[in-house]
């Protein structure tokens, strides 16, 4: 039996409550993070991801309590991302009980942070989240002209790294950036298609393949999952190690155990 493919529910947390955003906008409340974490664990989730989308400092302090309360009841790995700007933020989250931290904007602004985290906590703790946005070939040359260390002269694919929750362009080519963070010390890449996120019309398989072919660390695909068939296609047609999804689990549309049975029948290596 090979390593299983992982099913990872994602919980966006705002001021201590789980919410689900569509295209990073139009937020709806969905529930208590500790209860949801417990439920997902019991249903067979392989891992959990919490993204703190809180804007205020008080809200971030709340997140630390959420992390501890989740660690008290959950016996599978969980990652916390969002709002981690520096080493101290990461240390707090890990000390409060998270297994891994995910950084995105902070890694782009200070790539050395990836290495620092790896050296202190070990590579396995460091997830770099890459939010990638498709650029049409007409827009692409603009990316090359921008001042950036990682933009390449001959971009044959046109995915750009976005920061600040998918809102700000960086001029950085996503593939080059994936290779860079691997060499800096990332243990895993959480790859989100900004275009697909919230659409529920499937993962972006081309993007997933481009990134997972470029690195030798595990890749979690995210953005666009609307039904179990999307996850099956992801694992059949790409080398992704894990599928992250939010909305299909949140409103009890599909339970995790049902999704996993469906994938197992589809010939995917799944833990049960």
């Amino acid at each position, binding site marked *: 039996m090979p390593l299983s493919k992982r099913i990872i529910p994602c919980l966006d947390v705002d001021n201590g409550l789980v919410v689900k955003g569509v295209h990073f906008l139009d937020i709806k409340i969905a529930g208590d993070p500790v209860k949801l974490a417990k439920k997902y664990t019991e249903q067979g989730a392989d891992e959990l991801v919490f993204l703190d989308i809180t804007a205020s400092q008080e809200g971030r302090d709340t997140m630390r309590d959420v992390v501890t309360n989740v660690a008290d009841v959950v016996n599978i*790995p969980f990652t916390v991302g969002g709002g981690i700007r520096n080493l101290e933020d990461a240390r707090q989250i890990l000390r409060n009980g998270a297994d891994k931290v995910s950084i995105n904007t902070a890694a782009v602004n200070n790539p050395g942070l990836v290495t620092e985290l790896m050296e202190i*906590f070990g590579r396995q703790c460091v997830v770099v989240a890459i939010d990638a946005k498709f650029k049409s070939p007409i827009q692409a040359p603009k990316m090359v002209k921008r001042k950036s260390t990682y933009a390449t002269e001959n971009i044959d694919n046109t995915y750009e790294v976005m920061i600040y929750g998918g809102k700000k362009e960086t001029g950085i080519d996503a593939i080059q950036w994936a290779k860079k963070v691997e060499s800096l010390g990332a*243990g895993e890449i959480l790859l989100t298609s900004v275009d697909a996120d919230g659409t529920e019309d499937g993962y972006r398989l081309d993007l997933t393949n481009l990134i997972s072919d470029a690195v030798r660390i595990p890749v979690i695909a995210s953005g666009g999952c609307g039904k179990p068939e999307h996850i099956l296609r992801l694992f059949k047609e790409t080398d992704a190690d894990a599928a992250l999804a939010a909305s299909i689990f949140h409103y009890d549309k599909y339970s995790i155990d049902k999704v996993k049975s469906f994938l197992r029948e589809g010939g995917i290596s799944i833990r049960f």
Partner: protein
Amino acid sequence: MLRIAIFDYGAGNLYSLKAAFERNPNTRVSIIDSLKNILDYDGLVLPGVGNFDPAITSIGQGKELFIKAVEDKTPILGICLGMEMLFNKSEEGKLNGLSILDGEVIMLNKKLTKIPHMGWNTLKLEMNGGNLLNGIPDNSWVYFVHSYRISPVNKGIVIANSEYGITIPAAIEIDNLFGTQFHPEKSGKTGAIILKNFLRACRERT
């Protein structure tokens, strides 16, 4: 009341390991940053978060007491890095290991598989799984996160293997010394049974 000590190399994330042990009744877990009082505890855990050299350095002067604890047959559980430290040396670091067990720690092969070996994989039991894996069926799923594997001189200590491109020793046991390459505290119900088995070894010795 069972008294268990988890040794902190200074890296930090020990909360979930502590919480996993404390889900068992009558178990008190202390996180310690020096080994000077280890002989007072019923069991010692070397956790699995950090890097080889800083972890070895943090043990420092405590090494002799640690060897004494092993000789006294104090139950000791090394998780991932904590198990790797029991051997002579590791490709992750330059410093010598604790040399409680003979063998070395080797990096996984990037050409064969992605590194780290991260996620859920199955156990193939050897020697009936020893005391540590008592009650765990063959092919049970456990959670791995590691880039190195152990290569013990005495293969007889291996109580489970896992397949990831090559065969990886997944758990070891000799007397009251236990080690897992995977993380029992993150391995759901299977992991909870393994921690309970370790606590039983601690209880039986007292």
